[in-house]
């Protein structure tokens, strides 16, 4: 028997770590991974609330979040590959001009 707030605190910590990673990282791929961490934190809170209110639609919504995250990862990584090909760098601070 665990209070549901423990799960929500864990989800909050993961989300906060994700946002911190988004702010402090300079590598595009690491920033993208922080976004995935945020999505995982949100998934945990969905499942926790589904358990609290006995509503299975919380678990169903996790599927949709996962599918959207997978699609976003695919397209985002393709964009990262394009950026690397044109700018030759993965550092966000150096991708600051619209035209080379």
């Amino acid at each position, binding site marked *: 028997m665990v209070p549901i707030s423990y799960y929500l605190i*864990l989800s909050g*910590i993961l989300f906060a770590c994700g946002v911190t990673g988004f702010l402090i990282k300079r590598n595009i791929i690491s920033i993208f991974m922080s976004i995935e961490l945020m999505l995982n934190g949100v998934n945990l809170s969905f499942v926790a609330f589904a358990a609290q209110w006995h509503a299975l639609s919380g678990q169903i919504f996790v599927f949709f979040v996962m599918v959207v995250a997978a699609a976003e990862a695919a397209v985002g990584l393709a964009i990262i590959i394009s950026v690397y090909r044109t700018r030759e760098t993965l550092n966000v601070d150096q991708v600051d001009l619209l035209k080379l």
Partner: protein
Amino acid sequence: MVHLILFLVFGAVCVAGAVNLLAQRHPINSALSLVVVMGSLAVEYLLLGAEFVAAVQVIVYAGAVMVLFVFVIMLLNAGVEERTKGSRVALLFGVPGMLIGSVLIGWVLIERTGNPMVPAGALPGAPKVIGWLLFHDFLLPFEVTSILVLIAIMGAVVLASHPDTEQKEKEG
């Protein structure tokens, strides 16, 4: 009791993985810490009874999406991150800011929600029940996400293809 111990152990592994993702400077180490986070999250889902979601988390997220990340890191030969002026400023303001923000979120979550206790395996999400819901009540979002995935596949293939081979295919 066992539930609490399992939750704390895998919660600690989760948080350690998340902090390690922030602390590591090479993206491959961050990617592997994220895989650890996803694996321990799958155990947390199992503790809440969501068995199908846990299995899908391992198969899709840890087994496919993160493999894609590792692939791209290997292909682009991403190296160790450098510390620039912008990243130092972000570290100085971002980390305390997020610490305050997360304490705020935690306080709101504890005060405002009812804080009931849930037993282990609180809401059994058997595949049969999830399948029924997915194909009856949530059929429209299901079909829309399948179209979304199709568009993502086409977009990714077009974005990642070599511009030279496109030229050669047009000429040849």
